[in-house]
């Protein structure tokens, strides 16, 4: 559709408009066709986006896996493996990200503060 408008703006005459009109119709058909079979693909993208949670927010990754993979593949054949991999890797990454801050406070607990800063008088 955008090609039709672009050609109109160029203003090259009636013939050009007829040609672009045909092309525009073809583009419209193609767009409608893509929209028709791409519904699942759109769902897949949405569900894939759900894996991009802030650090520490694991909970929302568990659902929507079948739609995501089905849409991406367009057939639904190997529906589970791709999304399972994504979710497993996402959970793994978030676990790896969380540990250092816990380890850091653990080090603070293990520090012998009283030895490091003895309560002596002047």
């Amino acid at each position, binding site marked *: 559709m955008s090609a039709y408008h672009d050609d109109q703006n160029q203003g090259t005459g009636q013939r050009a408009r007829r040609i672009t009109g045909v092309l525009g119709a073809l583009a419209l058909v193609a767009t409608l066709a893509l929209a028709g079979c791409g519904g699942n693909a759109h769902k897949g993208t949405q569900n894939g986006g759900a894996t991009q949670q*802030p*650090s*520490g*927010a*694991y*909970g929302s*990754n*568990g659902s929507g896996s079948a739609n995501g993979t089905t849409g991406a593949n367009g057939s639904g054949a*190997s529906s*589970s*493996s*791709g999304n*399972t*991999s994504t*979710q*497993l*890797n996402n*959970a*793994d990454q978030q*676990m*790896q*990200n*969380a*540990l250092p*801050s*816990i*380890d*850091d*406070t*653990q080090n*603070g*607990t*293990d*520090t012998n*503060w*009283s030895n*490091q*800063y*003895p*309560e*002596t*008088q*002047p």
Partner: protein
Amino acid sequence: MKSFGTTLVARLGGIALATMFAAGLIAPTVASAAPAGCNDNIQCITQFGQARVSERLTALNTLNGKLTTLSNHGLLPGSDLQTLQGNIQTNESGLNSLAATFTTSDCNATAAAEKACVVKVYTQFRIFAVAIPVDYATATVDGISSECQKLTNLNLDPMMTAAINASPANIQSQLKQFQATYDQSLAACATDANNATAQLSYFTPANFDNNKSTYQTNWTQFIATEHTAHKDLHSAVDAFHQFVQLYNKNAPHS
């Protein structure tokens, strides 16, 4: 699983205030410690006290930053963060107020009076003896608890089982071992974190001042429990990481 972090911090919330109220009645642990070389020079004693206050303010500020980091990772609920940071602010405010007295006529009238003022840095706050280590411990146990709870709620087991079934037969046994380690470590993590949480409420300035020996014994026991919970968490995370790495390397999708 219940949220044990919130209740834990709530119980500990009064430590800083309790310290300040109780300290005036409690004798300093090291009141008779050897002089550090001021030889009754009042200005020297004042500067000594100011330096001790500065050390504590720096440590509290560092702790504050680490709490924020933990919270940013979703490992310290907002209410717990507020309670712990409230404790920090109370201690910081109290220390600054105390430092301001060092140069008043009441304190620096004599060397003995100045020492009496300075020693309150220890007796009224117990920053390094109690407050700092207990706050770090609280945050750590809270972080471990939060992470264990998250992993439990995430319910990764069905996904791991699906991944095992979709993997080549020659790695399924190894994947199952990683899954079993993950499951066992996660269950142990929750139990041990609960046990550590239950011990934390004992560690108050009052208990430190009243019976230091028992306090130290209990602290040693707590640290052992906390280490076990921490080790459990690492074991679960490591097992899951190994699982994912092996799956990624061998699964048909890759």
